[in-house]
């Protein structure tokens, strides 16, 4: 059949890389239009030949099928010669023909959609889902890394701090117990008393770093307020939340705020800073600004990267506006239910 020959040539031509690329992009654009969404390009791989092969078989097969159906229908019509028969037969045939046409149109539309989906599947990059999986994998890895590093730090702090001091306490008390000289015993007890106090101070610092008690007591707004009180640069606060987010979200935003304020102190040379906390329609927005020299760059230091990583574990984002000469504004947004 001439049609099949033309198709065959088309398929053969499609193996030429340039033509194939044009065909693929044409097909992708068409599929996007048919599906009402963009079909982003994927890296070349084995799926493009698969797409060609499927089309090379399905395309001609469909044409043959359509040809057979049309010729047979026309044949039936000729044989029945409806004009010469009774009106009832004519009516029945007309209805049958109409139904058949509607069915054909519906099948054609479905086939079109199926082909578009196929093109999207084989020629697209899998759409937003693949992108999302990549993001989630990355943020999960970062969260796991951060958690592991955090645990190592806590272990080290305990080992070198409170644990070591308690060993000293026990040692001094043991010596005091067996000391003959009361004056020496008193001295040893005094030392043990000192060490116990330092152990407490170490533990207090450690707890503050893990989960600040004020965050549990007062929630995000109260805890940020308390942190602002300790910031060497004067901070104006405007903190209003309509509800209380989940503790991990609270914690992430709290440490992000603390890190942002510590950046202001360390790098900005600002004379004033401000923090604003608000509920948005679908989450929380935290903005930290200062009147410093600007030029903050997330590639330069670990501070901003740390904030971005903390937030990304909860699908949050960090936007940095910091032109040279300032001012600097960090906008942190995190979707959550309130």
């Amino acid at each position: 059949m001439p049609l099949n020959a033309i198709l065959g040539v088309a398929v053969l031509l499609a193996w030429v890389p340039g033509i194939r690329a044009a065909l693929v992009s044409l097909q992708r654009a068409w599929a996007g239009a048919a599906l009402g969404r963009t079909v982003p390009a994927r890296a070349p791989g084995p799926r493009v030949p698969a797409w060609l092969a499927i089309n090379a078989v399905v395309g001609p097969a469909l044409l043959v099928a359509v040809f057979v159906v049309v010729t047979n229908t026309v044949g039936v019509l000729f044989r029945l010669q409806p004009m010469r028969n009774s009106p009832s037969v004519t009516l029945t045939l007309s209805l049958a023909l109409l139904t058949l046409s509607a069915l054909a149109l519906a099948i054609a539309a479905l086939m079109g959609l199926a082909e578009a989906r196929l093109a999207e599947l084989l020629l697209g990059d899998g759409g937003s889902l693949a992108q999302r999986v990549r993001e989630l994998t990355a943020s999960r890895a970062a969260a796991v890394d951060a958690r592991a590093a955090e645990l190592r730090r806590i272990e080290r702090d305990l080992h070198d701090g409170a644990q070591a001091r308690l060993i000293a306490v026990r040692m001094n008390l043991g010596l005091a117990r067996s000391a003959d000289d009361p004056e020496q015993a008193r001295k040893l007890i005094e030392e043990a008393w000192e060490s116990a106090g330092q152990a407490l101070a170490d533990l207090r610092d450690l707890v503050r770093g893990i989960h600040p008690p004020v965050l549990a007591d007062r929630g995000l707004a109260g805890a940020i307020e308390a942190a602002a009180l300790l910031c060497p640069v004067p901070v104006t606060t405007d903190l209003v939340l309509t509800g209380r987010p989940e503790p991990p979200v609270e914690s992430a935003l709290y440490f992000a705020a603390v890190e942002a304020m510590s950046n202001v102190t360390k790098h900005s040379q600002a004379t004033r800073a401000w923090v604003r906390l608000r509920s948005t329609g679908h989450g929380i927005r935290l903005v930290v600004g200062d009147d410093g020299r600007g030029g903050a760059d997330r590639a330069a230091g670990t501070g901003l990267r740390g904030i971005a990583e903390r937030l990304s574990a909860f699908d949050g984002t960090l936007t940095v506006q910091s032109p040279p000469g300032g001012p600097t504004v960090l906008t942190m947004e995190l979707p959550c239910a309130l």
Partner: protein
Amino acid sequence: MRVVIAEDLALLRDGLIRLLSAHGFEVVEAVDNAPMLLTALMEQTPDVAVIDVRLPPTYTDEGLRTALEARRRRPGLPVLILSQYVEQLYARELLSDRSGGIGYLLKDRIGDVAEFVESVRRVADGGTAMDAEVISQLLTRRSRDEPLAELTTREREVLALMAEGLSNLAIAARFGVTDKAIGKHTNNIFAKLGLPPSDDHNRRVMAVLAYLEAGPVSPDPQKRRSGLA
């Protein structure tokens, strides 16, 4: 001297009862939760209350909130708050009614028995006992264009010790000078902070509060404070 104790850990509660009883206090009631604390404070009207900041039922800052509530109902009721950590935010809330009789100490300080007992007595007498850690946190801040910036280094040091609750005599002993010299410093501090003449106790509390409030600038501090209740 009649005292009410609120501490949820039995070990520490018993220790406090023993310690204070041994130093001439009469422990009229020892409770382990916030609702019972409020009742005890209202019914017993103690000379002083020693309260753990974290109490059931919420195990957050229930003790502090109850103390503030009790002082709203009985202004000036002396309370000493104990905590595993100190927050300037809480220190400011405690002092904000400006009526004295306030203590805020780390639990570690109980270990220094003589000083701790002295702090409880001072609070019962309407004085203050702010933990040195609250003060040292403040000292890390840069000086700014604020009334405190006008204070000399020595005046700042005196103010810090005043904030801890030390009397002029005690401050004088620390610096090895006469209490008259310290009196001159405190008068300068009051003048520079614009505190009108009133009884010495009250002015000391105001000065400490000025010290604590020289922190972040809030557009509306009154609103912020009421929002905490």
